[in-house]
């Protein structure tokens, strides 16, 4: 019964709503970062050009919050990273996962 109820609304949710899987950042920084990520991916959504989206995200984060950010966008990957504390963000957006951290 639940499953059926979920189906309809779920699709709506899947469209363009980022979901924070793990965030180590302070809330306002996290909010800004999520905005930057969603903007970048939306901009390059047409051709599914994740590379330029990731580039854009990395450059914007560098400018705003200081040097050496790493941004990984993908539909299926695993990772083990060492990053500066309080500077990690891992979100799901649409059908991609985005990892963004500073080191």
């Amino acid at each position, binding site marked *: 019964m639940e499953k059926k109820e979920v189906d309809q609304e779920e699709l709506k949710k899947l469209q363009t709503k980022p979901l924070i*899987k793990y965030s180590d950042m302070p809330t306002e920084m996290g909010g800004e970062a999520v905005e930057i990520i969603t903007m970048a991916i939306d901009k390059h959504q047409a051709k599914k050009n994740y590379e330029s989206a990731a580039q854009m995200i990395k450059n914007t984060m560098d400018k705003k919050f200081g040097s050496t950010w790493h941004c990984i966008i993908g*539909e299926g990957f695993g*990772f083990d990273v060492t*990053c*500066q*504390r309080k500077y990690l963000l891992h979100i799901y957006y649409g059908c991609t*996962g985005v990892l963004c951290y500073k080191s």
Partner: protein
Amino acid sequence: MRTLRKKNLNSKDVKTSLKGAPKKGVPRKGTPSKSTTPRKRKVKKEKKSPPPEEDDLYKEPIKQIIKPPNQLQLTADELKSEVTRVLTGDDPNRPKNIVKFSYKDQCFKLDPPGLADHMAIHYVNEGYSMHTKSKEYENQKKIDELKKEREEQAEKAIMDEASANSNVVKTKENSKNRFNFSDRATQTLNNPMKTTFVGTEPPPVAQYSANVSQWQIYDSYVTEVIVSQMERAEGGFSRISNDKNDDHDNVGLHSEEAKQTLKIVERLVNQNSQDEMYQDFKYWEDASDQYRPGEGSLLPLWRFGYERTKRKQVTSLCWNPSNTDLFAVGYGSYDFLQQGSGYVCCFSLKNTSYPEYIFITESGVMSLDFSPDYPSLLAVGCYDGNVYVFDVSISSTKPIYSSTIASGRHNDPVWQVRWEREEPGKDLGFYSISSDGNVYNWSVSKNELKMEPVIQLKFLPSVNSDDQEMAITGLASGCCFDFNPKQDHLFLVGTEEGNIYQCSKSYSGQYLKNYYGHHMAVYSVQWNPFDNDIFISSSSDWTVKLWDFRQSSPLLSLDLGNSVGDVKWSPYSSTTFAAVSSEGKVHVYDLSENRQEPLCKQKVVKRSKLNKVSFSKNEFVIIVGDDKGSVTSLKLSPNLRGVSSSIEEDHDAQQLQEEDDDEYEKKKVDEKELQVERMKALRKVLGGVKDDI
């Protein structure tokens, strides 16, 4: 016997080796002795003890071995053992224990000096000689030849030009004099270089590992959806809850404990800086009152203000029933054309510099009331007709209940709100009155505010008006109301037309009684707290009138000389009341002393009108609000209190002797009866209706 030719031998030797030794010193015949010792003494004296002579040149110095006393005493074996010493090329100044942070291993590591570290370079001169057979030399050769060619060409060109133009002597290029020329150079002192560095600790790092895959994304979205569905299923609230604080904010300086501490510190700092004022507030009794009976004075204490409300008018005041140092002030504007936002500030006498709680409303606040049963609930009525209920104990600045168009609201400013006493089985509620002529009862239920009209104020013109005049029908605009303390269902309503009506909660059709007396709007009406047949009203026609509820004309009318903003009975004396006028004066009357003149007529604010007044229940203090957004607190001098200073003593007594509860109660009852008696006596004098015995 032939003597042997012998040299001078030692006698010992001769003896041993030969016979017939010649005599000593006897030269042999016939031979010229080469030895120049014809008669020689024995020269070899050194072998024997040397005789003391003057020249020591050829002698070896006398050797004497002297051992220093602190010399290490070693055994013979040890003396024989060999000790090896190695000479190394290490620079002794180089430290051997440098520690550096290794980013690869994320830890501090010992960095011993390498081979090159021990080398100190004193002078470097880079040479430029090249081997003739190397490539470099060939390249350089080519470059040099090219250069030379270019130079020759340039010279030629110049020469041609020169010769073409005129006879110019070719100047030889200056070449160095090879004979007298010598290079001179100096070398400055090269200070020895030193390398220093400082390493900071790198920022803390954390590790994080996870997987991202399509099914994980799907699953997490699904859980999100389920969670949000559950939330929705619990039903909507109109009750707005607090925002959750960040964990980050709850630690240290922003924690709840710190807030509490800061609050206490702030209060103490204020109290310390205003120590004299607090002493006056508690203990100052104007001694001159003894010498002038029938006169009193008001001692100004503090002025409460809030910077954002400086341009607003104080429209309402209310003391908190349980925390008697707390009072709420409502800010708004009476001016129809200039309406802004409204503020509600709760001040405490313990902290006179800043309000304890601040609430902002869209429209100007016109009326306030604290609920006597739930002292943290504050009902607010606004200029746009909305009513709100705030809870001062929660930290949100939004109202917990608000009236909307759906729930029904007034169409005109809500001039007064008043909570009713809680009854078991019924929701807590409050009443509001507005210029649109309606009195509504609002009940606060679980999650919303329900409105119920109580009465519509029909306008009944006074009896004295001419019949030829157009009878103005329609609704009267209510300005104020008050419930009878004893008989809860009765209440009085004052209107803008000047009439006062007595109504009942249970009977909404008609008025029980009309009181005609005022010519202009009645801004305040209040029952006497001790004697429930008397009430007082004030109006902008400059008068304050005293009524008996059974008579439709006033018992007593007092002219204050200027529009009266508000009048209030004193809660501890049945015959004392205070009124404020728009010239900034506070009038305090005690009718048992003087029925025509006020005991005190004092100007307390400059160039502003006083809008509201309120008595404090515990202290002999009144607060007055003016139209410049400030609230002034004043202390009543003994003559104005209308009662011996027994109230304060009683309070102190209660704190000290809890056991004598009964006695205290008795005292209170006695005091009350005294007041009632007083009022009755006054009423008799004024010619009121006699009580039915």
